[in-house]
């Protein structure tokens, strides 16, 4: 049996197939749009490390502990900054009114 296809028979076959499964015309630029969407999907794929960090961060215990630590740190730094500014302002006043502590 020969594998060669007669070109006229092939054309007829295609015509028959088109008649059996009619399809709407594709809009212009359809192929390009499909490829663009595929490329965008590839770009939007998240790196694995972000997922790993997110899973680690979103554990309730860790999240609460982190928040508490950050709040404690903020409070301590705020109190220290307040004390430092108070001390320097106090020294400024004392140096102004005490002739023995004035800068030469």
């Amino acid at each position, binding site marked *: 049996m020969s594998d060669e296809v007669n070109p006229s028979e092939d054309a007829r076959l295609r015509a028959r197939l088109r008649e059996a499964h009619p399809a709407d015309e594709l809009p212009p630029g359809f192929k390009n749009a499909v490829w663009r969407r595929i490329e965008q999907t590839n770009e*939007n794929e*998240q790196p694995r490390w*972000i*997922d790993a*960090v*997110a899973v680690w*961060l*979103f554990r309730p215990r860790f*999240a609460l502990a*982190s*928040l508490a630590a*950050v*709040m*404690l*740190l*903020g*409070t*301590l*730094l*705020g*109190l220290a*900054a*307040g*004390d430092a*500014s*108070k001390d*320097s*302002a*106090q020294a*400024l*006043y*004392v140096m*102004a*009114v*005490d*002739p*023995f*502590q*004035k800068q*030469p």
Partner: protein
Amino acid sequence: MRSTTFKLVVVALVILAAFAACYFGARWFSAAIPEGGGELAWLQTEFRLGDGEMQRIRQLHEGYMPKCEEMCARIAAKNGELNAALGGATNVSAEVRQKLAEVAVLRAECQAKMLAHFYEVSHAMPPAQGARYLAEMKRLTLGLHARQEESMTGTNAHVRP
């Protein structure tokens, strides 16, 4: 925006907001002095003084400052004289004794003027705040000299057994 990234950004913002709230809250609670508030900023913040009280205290302060400057100049001059008398001396001469006595008299005079100013300022404050101000100023000025003197006599370093 991708969902995980969005969540991470939200978490970072929440953490930043919590830190900022605690930091500025603690600063406010500890009565931090605003930058560039001048020499009297500490008084206003520490003793929670109103505008009227501050106006009176500012007048007293401005009236006292020229006297303070004059005292400073006199102290500097007297210290210069004492140093000149001490220069090259091998024993406590009569001149050195006299200069030491003059420095002591001047020091007492300056301390008296300074104390008088502190009393005036304390009277311009509400009584409780005025008492606290006086105690604090005595500690910060006279107390400093007293501590220096106590540090000389507080130990038995010079006491023979």
